[in-house]
């Protein structure tokens, strides 16, 4: 009977997987031992044996040969066996075995002619030390998931004090470790890991980043879920994957990183990026996603310093978002900040300095070009303008380079029952336009404390963000003046005064405008939250979260006495495009002898959320149920505004309104701001969610939220938002075991309903009276108070139903993983300020539910590690998103036909009332609808295709318009690459937008050749004759392909670990943003605002884009 599998059954090993072989051997061994263990004595076999540092197995073999005794053992047991050195002559077998086993962690028993080996029982405490195995020295290496060495990882022997840290190459040596010891590896930002030494002297460890471990755990509303068991569509972005650069805005951090998020950023440091998720889900000023920061719903995203982010989870389909009910229609972005960790105290500093330069300018004519054009067209300049200068007006208002720097210092730590993290962040970012700047300090403290034998966890988070935003005064007007000014005029006259020529209508020196005005806003945002989590019996957990948010803004504007020179009668605003937005005359704003405006407002937001979670497993069934209640009260616009004028000196600015004498100016009226700024809203919800999981194979999630809100009409205060999602983890099925292609495969499907309650005021549903102006009554102008809006008791939320089907898989042993999602998103009852007959509703507008819009799309994200080769690795991630947006109806209860709303009216010279875009069912939001350019006629004048298809020189608004393209892209792409070589890492990120059109109204306005002697034109307009008065007409001539690929970022980093005994890690990097853009677009930059109702219109509202180079350092102590 030769049952030693190791020796006797090699064939078996070939056919059976090792695990099974092992199991079989164990079973055989155990059974045999149980049956045969009868007696231990009775044999006295003698033998001679002489071995030196031989393995126990070898020794067994020799004994077997010499005695015929068979050894029974589990192969595993010998793993910790010590080498044997023995020299005996003709000794009794038992004596020999005693010697051999003396220092082994094993003992033996002789049953019949079989020697059964077993693991020694733990030695009794009385055992003398000499009999214990001597401590060993363990060494090894700690790496991250990508194979990069981790320096400064702390390694402790569990239950002991002290420890060591890994070196720069991730290696460690820890002497005097018991073979049975357990080592604890911990490192900030990484998941701690416990490893049993088990006699090994070499241990290599892969530490998983904390977020990666969360990557297996996803933050969802009111809890976390494991990614592998998710049935909804959620994208997670880790901090190292966020965009790099001198970025102050969370939207920009995510740009290009999440399929389905269309983010367009402005170059303005004080303007947040427009974020659109899976296409516009409403025509009502489509807003961005709803932010939930550390569980605080609706938190202000400006309180987060990018360095403090631990993970961002983007909830996309309704199964994921419906738990947030009527605020979820535009998606939910969950931001989780870093927390302190047990046992690891850490101080980290991150900082950078950045330099920005304008990446591209408009190609306006310079003096030579303009003079040539004038000569060719027999034009001449007014002596008021022609001062023989050659001014680049773009440079005149731009900084040659803008400087920014950011510093983040955080310290964190934790003991057995509490942890903390505190950080402070300072950002100073200059805008590229002279005078614009953002300074911001964010301080954050987060503490978690356990109590009642760790059954209760309290958390306190306090974060305060203080910003000081200096804007370019009248920025949009300055930008348009910058483009219009003739290069032949100087910025300043010979006598040092600013050049001006008011003979040209609406012509004001942009440099003087900046110099003689101030515009500043200070914000302070405080967010405090207090959380309690109680672990109850029966798998129940109770959470109570209280939060308070307060935003204060203090705004000041000042236009000094110079502004009194400006003609009040043609000083217009240059607003961003939209529906019903036209330029406004603001000349009277400037008063006399200086004019100041001051406003101070506070918004507060109180939230109580409480929920009970039940988590139980019954065999293969596991259930997670959440039941909760949420209350939120918001007050916005608590404050005031005031203005004054007629100041004795200009240096006072907006700092002392009391010095003004406004009443000396008879027609001046103090401006207290708009009516209805103060608004109070309340949101109350009950919600429940059930997750059911059978054997990690079949997953079901269902949720229901009952939402009430004060913003809706009396008849529709409450609504229900259900969702259901199912998933099948095919990869876990038995029949998948036989294949090697997929290492994971999951099929998901979900349907749910969410709502939108944003984009309109708190009292929109109610009859409100307000001041509509003043009227003559018995000799005086008295206030006229009338309804500002009618009551609409039926006003309710927009309803967005989303169907989502997705598949997640990993192939090539996980080297390539991918997710594909298809969705169909249908919004009905869009809240919109519908036009109705003015005779029915005064003002001709009413907020009502009506119409519908559809978004269908497909998203793909791929992640691959094509190369991992010792020192070198390459990781690449690609995401693609395709969306088709279509308005399906615009019918509302007040009109039986509501269609074709023309909007986006740039009001170019002689083109008042010309619109660029059209809201119409069957067409996407942002549909361009304009004149069709048809080249020049015989006399060189621009001609257009009329509505009837004939050619015309005098096209009419509306009747001669044609459908001309879509402002929304068909494909969005983000492609990131990380290369690592030894201590270097290189990250390259490219971003692309394809298939969209941009209306370049800026270019159209700068083609106005017939006024080339008074307003500058683009060099490209040189081919048009000056008599061609309609060459700049808004038409397809200025509708351009908006596709682009941007080399968004390249970052090269070098990391050094363990410098001296104080510094754990040190990383230097250099990063460059916006290295180049591949595009056919002729404007300043093809990244034009894609949010709101008027996407894709370049409208003299561009803030120049920049190219940034920054140098940064991260140190941890």
């Amino acid at each position, binding site marked *: 009977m030769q049952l030693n599998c190791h020796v006797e059954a090699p064939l078996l090993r070939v056919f059976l997987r090792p695990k099974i072989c092992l199991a079989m051997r164990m079973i055989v061994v155990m059974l045999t031992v149980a049956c045969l263990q009868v007696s231990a004595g009775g044999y006295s076999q003698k033998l001679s044996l002489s071995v030196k540092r031989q393995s126990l197995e070898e020794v067994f073999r020799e004994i077997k040969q010499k005695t015929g005794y068979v050894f029974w053992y589990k192969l595993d047991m010998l793993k910790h066996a010590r080498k044997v050195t023995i020299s005996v002559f003709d000794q009794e077998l038992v004596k020999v075995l005693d010697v051999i086993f003396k220092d082994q962690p094993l003992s033996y028993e002789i049953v019949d002619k079989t020697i059964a080996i077993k693991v020694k029982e733990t030695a009794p405490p009385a055992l003398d030390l000499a009999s214990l195995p001597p401590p060993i020295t363990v060494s090894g290496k700690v790496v991250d998931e990508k194979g990069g060495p981790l320096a400064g990882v702390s390694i402790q022997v569990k239950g002991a004090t002290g420890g060591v840290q890994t070196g720069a190459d991730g290696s460690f040596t820890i002497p005097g470790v018991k073979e049975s010891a357990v080592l604890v590896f911990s490192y900030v930002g990484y998941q701690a890991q416990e490893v049993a030494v088990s006699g090994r002297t070499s241990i290599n460890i892969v530490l998983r980043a904390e977020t990666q471990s969360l990557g297996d755990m996803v933050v969802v509303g009111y809890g976390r879920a494991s990614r592998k068991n998710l049935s909804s569509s959620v994208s997670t972005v880790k901090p190292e994957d966020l965009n790099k650069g001198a970025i102050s805005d969370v939207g920009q951090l995510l740009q290009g990183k999440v399929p389905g998020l269309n983010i367009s950023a402005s170059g303005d440091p004080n303007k947040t990026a427009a974020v659109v998720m899976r296409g516009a889900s409403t025509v009502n000023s489509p807003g961005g996603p709803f932010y939930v920061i550390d569980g605080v719903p609706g938190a202000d995203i400006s309180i987060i310093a990018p360095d403090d982010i631990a993970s961002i989870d983007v909830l996309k389909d309704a199964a994921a978002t419906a738990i947030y009910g009527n605020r979820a229609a535009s998606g939910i972005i969950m931001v989780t900040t870093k927390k302190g960790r047990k046992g690891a105290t850490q101080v980290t500093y991150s900082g950078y300095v950045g330099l920005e330069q304008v990446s591209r300018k408009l190609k306006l004519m310079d003096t030579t070009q303009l003079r040539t054009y004038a000569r060719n067209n027999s034009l001449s300049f007014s002596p008021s303008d022609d001062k023989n200068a050659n001014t680049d007006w773009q440079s005149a208002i731009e900084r040659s380079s803008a400087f920014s720097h950011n510093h983040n210092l955080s310290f964190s730590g934790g003991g057995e029952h509490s942890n903390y993290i505190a950080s402070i962040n300072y950002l100073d970012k200059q805008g590229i336009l002279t005078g614009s700047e953002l300074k911001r300090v964010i301080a954050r403290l987060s503490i978690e404390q356990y109590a009642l034998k760790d059954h209760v966890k309290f958390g306190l988070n306090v974060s305060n963000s203080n910003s000081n935003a200096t804007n370019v005064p009248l920025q949009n007007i300055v930008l348009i003046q910058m483009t219009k000014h003739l290069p032949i005029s100087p910025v300043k006259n010979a006598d040092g005064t600013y050049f001006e020529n008011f003979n040209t209508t609406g012509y004001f020196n942009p440099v003087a405008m900046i110099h003689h005005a101030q515009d500043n806003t200070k914000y302070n945002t405080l967010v405090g939250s207090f959380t309690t989590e109680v672990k109850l019996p029966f798998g129940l957990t109770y959470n109570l979260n209280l939060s308070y948010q307060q935003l204060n803004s203090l705004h000041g504007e000042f236009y000094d006495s110079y502004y009194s020179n400006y003609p009040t009668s043609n000083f217009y605003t240059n607003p961003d495009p939209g529906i019903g937005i036209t330029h406004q005359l603001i000349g009277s704003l400037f008063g006399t002898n200086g004019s100041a405006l001051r406003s101070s407002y506070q918004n507060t937001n109180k939230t109580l959320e409480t929920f009970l979670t039940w988590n139980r497993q019954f065999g293969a069934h596991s259930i997670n149920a959440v039941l909760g209640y949420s209350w939120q009260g918001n007050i916005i616009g608590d404050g005031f505004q005031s203005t004054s004028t007629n100041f004795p000196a200009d240096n006072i600015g907006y700092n002392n309104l009391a010095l003004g004498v406004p009443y000396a100016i008879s027609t001046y009226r103090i401006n207290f701001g708009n009516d209805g700024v103060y608004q109070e809203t309340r949101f109350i919800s009950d919600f429940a969610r059930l997750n059911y999981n059978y054997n990690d194979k079949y997953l079901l999630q269902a949720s229901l939220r009952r939402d*009430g809100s004060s913003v809706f009409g009396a008849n529709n205060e409450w609504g229900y938002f259900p969702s259901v999602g199912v998933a099948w983890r095919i990869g876990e099925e038995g029949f998948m075991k036989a294949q090697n292609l997929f290492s994971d495969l999951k099929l998901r499907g979900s349907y749910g309903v969410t709502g939108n309650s944003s984009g309109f005021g708190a009292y929109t549903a109610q009859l409100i009276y307000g001041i509509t102006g003043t009227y003559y009554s018995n000799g005086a102008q008295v206030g006229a108070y009338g309804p500002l809006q009618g009551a609409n008791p039926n006003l309710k939320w927009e309803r967005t139903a989303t169907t989502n089907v997705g598949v997640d898989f990993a192939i090539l042993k996980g080297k390539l993983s991918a997710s594909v999602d298809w969705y169909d998103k249908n919004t009905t009852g869009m809240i919109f300020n519908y036009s109705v007959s003015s005779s029915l509703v005064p003002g001709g507008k009413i907020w009502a539910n009506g119409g519908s819009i559809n978004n269908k799309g497909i998203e793909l994200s791929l992640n691959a590690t094509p190369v991992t080769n010792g020192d070198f690795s390459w990781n690449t991630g690609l995401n693609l998103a395709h969306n088709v947006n279509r308005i399906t109806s615009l019918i509302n209860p007040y009109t039986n036909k509501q269609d074709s709303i023309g909007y986006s009216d740039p009001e170019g010279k002689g083109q008042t009332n010309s619109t660029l875009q059209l809201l119409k069912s069957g067409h996407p939001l942002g549909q361009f609808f304009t004149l069709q350019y048809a080249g020049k006629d015989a006399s060189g004048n621009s001609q257009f295709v009329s509505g009837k298809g004939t050619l015309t020189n005098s096209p*009419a608004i509306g009747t001669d318009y044609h459908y001309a393209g879509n402002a929304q892209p068909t494909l969005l792409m983000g492609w990131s690459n990380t290369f690592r070589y030894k201590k270097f890492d290189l990250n390259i990120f490219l971003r692309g937008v394809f298939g969209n059109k941009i209306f370049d109204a800026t270019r159209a306005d700068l083609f106005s050749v017939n006024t080339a002697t008074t307003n500058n034109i683009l060099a490209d307009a040189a081919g048009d004759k000056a008599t061609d008065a309609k060459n700049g007409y808004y038409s397809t001539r200025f509708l351009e392909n908006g596709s682009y690929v941007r080399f968004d970022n390249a970052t090269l980093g070098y990391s050094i670990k363990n410098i001296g005994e104080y510094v754990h890690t040190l990383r230097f990097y250099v990063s460059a943003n916006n290295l180049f853009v591949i595009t056919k677009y002729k404007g300043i930059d093809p990244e034009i605002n894609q949010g709101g109702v008027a996407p894709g219109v370049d409208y003299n509202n561009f803030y120049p884009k920049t190219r940034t180079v920054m140098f940064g350092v991260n140190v941890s102590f």
Partner: protein
Amino acid sequence: MKRILIYINFSLLLLGSLSSCHKVEVAINSELTPDVYPQTAAQFNSATGPVYVALRGNYSVDYYFLQTLSSSEAILPAFGGNWYDGDKYEQLHKHSWNKDNAWVNSVWTYLENVIGTTNQTLYILSPAPDGSAKQTTLAELKTVRALCYFLMMDLYANVPIDSVYGNTTLHTNTPRPQLFTYVESELKAAIPYLNRVSGQAQYGRPNAYTAWTILAKMYLNAGVYTGTQRNDDCIAACDSVINSGLYSLEPMSTYLQMFYPTNGPTQKEFIFAIPYDASTTNGYMFHARYDLNRNLGIRYKYSGSTNGSITDPVMNQTYPGSGLLNSQPSGPQSVLPEYYAYFSDPNDVRNGQWLTGLQYWPDGQPLMVTTTNKGYDASYSGSSPAATYTYQLNLTPGMQFRSTATGANPSLFDFGNDEIAWNMGYRNIKFYPDYTNTVSRNQNNDVPVFRYSDIILMKAEAILRGGTATQGQTALSLANQLRAVRTTTPAWTTITVDSVYAERCREFSWECWHRNDMIRFGKFEDSYGFKTDSDPNHRIFPIPTTALSTNATLTQNPGY
């Protein structure tokens, strides 16, 4: 599973039953809600304000343009692309408008908005305590509404009637004759309750004589509106006003001041006027912006402009801070020569409303303008186009297209962008530029809708058209009654329909009645200026896009 669902349901019920946790309404304490407003007499009074704010809104801009630029009265051409604005002005002049024309749209919306606001205000006032004050207020509001329907009947002819607030049923067009009957009955129903006084307390709100004047206008034009002449009804309506004794003609010495920024309730000739005040943010009355030549800003203190530190009064100088440049009016509008021809009587005080020929400072010095040779005349081909050229401002009669070398382009209604082009056309400053306003372009001039002189001329015309003379007044005596305070030229000895037309031109320029007169006198299809269209369908404007897109039951007027 079932048990879990029961638990969830039960818990939801439990939560739901905690009503204090589910009170979603918020108390509104920052707004005027129906709970608090209007309650008092003063509040009810201020609640009528929005009607008058709405009425004031677009009367002197949009409504003025639609009525005036479509007639032979005035023209607003383009200058180097400026003021072309999608040919919305050109269309008015050439009668080539369509349903998309901006003015056709905005006037419809304006008048419908006054109507809707009135309906709403009537609804709001319904709970006010009953009494004669309430009856008068309601009658005044209904008269405003009737005025608007009358104006819509005049412009768009076939208009839907919406008179009840809260109704969302869309109504189709009411044909012009029925609309006529409706407005007539509304006014007649209102008259018994309307005040019979004028003066400061009544100013800006309609009294009984406003209603009679609207009726007189309607009856005089009844042939146009309904096909049936109603001259005797017109005469009776005029007599109601005449017999009130509240109104009289302004003497020659103060005729021009009647339209100055200082005008107001003391004007004995105003039966109904819309009060404008430069201090109101939505006081959209700024004729000087359109009518004043761009070099005359300082001369007329346009928008508070002042002659700065430079004493040499030559316009257009570019010394920094000279103040000779600021606050320029755009000044694109001028009178058509065909219309100005009616001002041939040198003794007529009404000639004072025109700016013609060479211009002077108030002290008699010539008003000089400095520019360049090329800036003066874009077709200049001499050797020194940029050389300074100084000339005395000279306004020339009428618009003429010059050679294309000047930048003129007839297909764009564009007369060029040089000084010669901008100085073409005589200007009207009847609504005298507001020299009191230093901040905005809004003017203080109140704008009369109905003046007593109109009553006099309407009665004269009605008699000439076959009506029966009353109270011993003849067409000739009435016309001479007016002319006696307008000109020193001897009284007329004969009178014809055409001479009444000419007198109306002289009397009501820039007062929005000329289109109405032209149609009634059969002259709307004449050729004038650059207009050759003679389609009689154009006597009525199209139902605009904005109306069609919000009310699909509307049908378009014939010919559009």
